[in-house]
């Protein structure tokens, strides 16, 4: 790093440690693992709007890092986005696009359109050429009606009536393909999305815990966190607490833990 810079520092990412990290990697010191949301996320259109669903497990390699994380992120009052892939990337990306949409709303004075969010997301993901690992299901209702989009990590998008993403997407898509119909009622749509996410939870190791739902209509958003909890820890059948006096005491010593000082008594004035 030169001692004398001639341009003032700008913000953004810093790659100062990349060379050091490569060198450490070559010498055998592996970087800590990334928390991913090996996930099932899905969404489907119904007669009056759309329903988004997600599971709540975040994994770090083979370990469950978070048993109840939130994968449905706020983008705008009329739009929510489910994120699969690297958890930090999903959080930061949706947060940034949410701020961009707010600035855009202040600039235009109108409700944000879903295509605006989709375009911002796809342009950003394409710019970083897939290094930002997030696969998103974006759903919202605007002047053009309810719309559902998927955005893949490299920046490709699809506009579809029902979508699934994540490691449990195949299980969820099987449910959708057999039961989705055009112009469903709300209860049917919520039941369908719940079943699709449950298929992912029970058949995919990367998904688990609870089902979160988000119903978006032109009148507003109904975010049901923990809509279904099929994996609650049951109460144990017996109590395994030991009664006091259950272990035999062989020796006891307290003098080595107590510091005996000579001096005056405590002054409590």
């Amino acid at each position, binding site marked *: 790093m030169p001692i004398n810079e001639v341009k003032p520092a700008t913000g953004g*990412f810093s790659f100062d440690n990349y060379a050091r990290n490569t060198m450490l990697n070559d010498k055998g010191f592996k970087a800590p693992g990334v928390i991913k949301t090996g996930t099932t996320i899905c969404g489907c259109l119904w007669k009056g709007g759309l329903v988004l669903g997600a599971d709540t497990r975040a994994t770090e390699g083979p370990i469950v890092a978070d048993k109840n994380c939130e994968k449905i992120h706020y983008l705008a009052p009329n739009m929510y986005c489910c994120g699969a892939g690297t958890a930090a990337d999903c959080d930061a990306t949706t947060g*940034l696009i949410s701020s961009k949409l707010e600035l*855009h709303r202040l600039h235009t004075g109108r409700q944000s359109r879903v295509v605006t969010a989709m375009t911002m997301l796809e342009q950003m993901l394409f710019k970083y050429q897939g290094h930002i690992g997030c696969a998103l299901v974006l759903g919202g209702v605007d002047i053009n009606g309810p719309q559902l989009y998927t955005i893949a990590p490299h920046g490709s998008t699809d506009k579809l009536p029902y979508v699934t993403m994540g490691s449990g997407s195949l299980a969820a898509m099987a449910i959708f393909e057999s039961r989705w119909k055009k112009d469903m009622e709300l209860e049917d749509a919520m039941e369908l999305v719940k079943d699709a996410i449950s298929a992912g939870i029970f058949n995919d190791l990367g998904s688990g815990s609870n089902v979160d739902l988000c119903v978006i209509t032109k009148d507003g958003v109904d975010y049901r966190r923990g809509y279904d909890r099929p994996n609650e820890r049951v109460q144990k059948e017996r109590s395994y607490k030991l009664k006091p006096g259950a272990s035999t005491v062989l020796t006891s010593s307290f003098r080595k833990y107590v510091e005996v000082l000579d001096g005056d008594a405590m002054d409590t004035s």
Partner: protein
Amino acid sequence: MSYDGSLRLIPAIQPSRATVAVVGRDTEYGVHDSMREGIRSVASEVIARHPVENIESQWKQTQEQLRMTMHRQTFGLHAPLRLQMEKALVNQVRRVPVGPVRNFGLDILENRDASIEYEDFLGDPQWSTNTIDPHVAMEHALGLGHI
């Protein structure tokens, strides 16, 4: 910056070996200046850069190229010339590049007034540990003291 009529969407993927920066900033024959730039380590110059670093450093330039080329082909030569003229007018104010340098006109022209980017909340320059010597910075800005 020269516009060469390129329609590139994203910056070119650099070869994995970074180019060795031989030209010093303040020397006559392009030799590395240890006093100003610290001890030279050839290993650190040859090691591969992260692909995202390459994308970030060339992004604005590549987008400008694309935009100017498309404007020229769609509207004629006058369109990119006018846009570049506006940019040159806005960049005329020459301040000493120490501390937070803000150019509101440039922000508007580059559409940063209605947008938020990673530069706005990551890596706050207030906490950067690089100190800028205003004399060296001014020399560089005025084009004195280097090749």
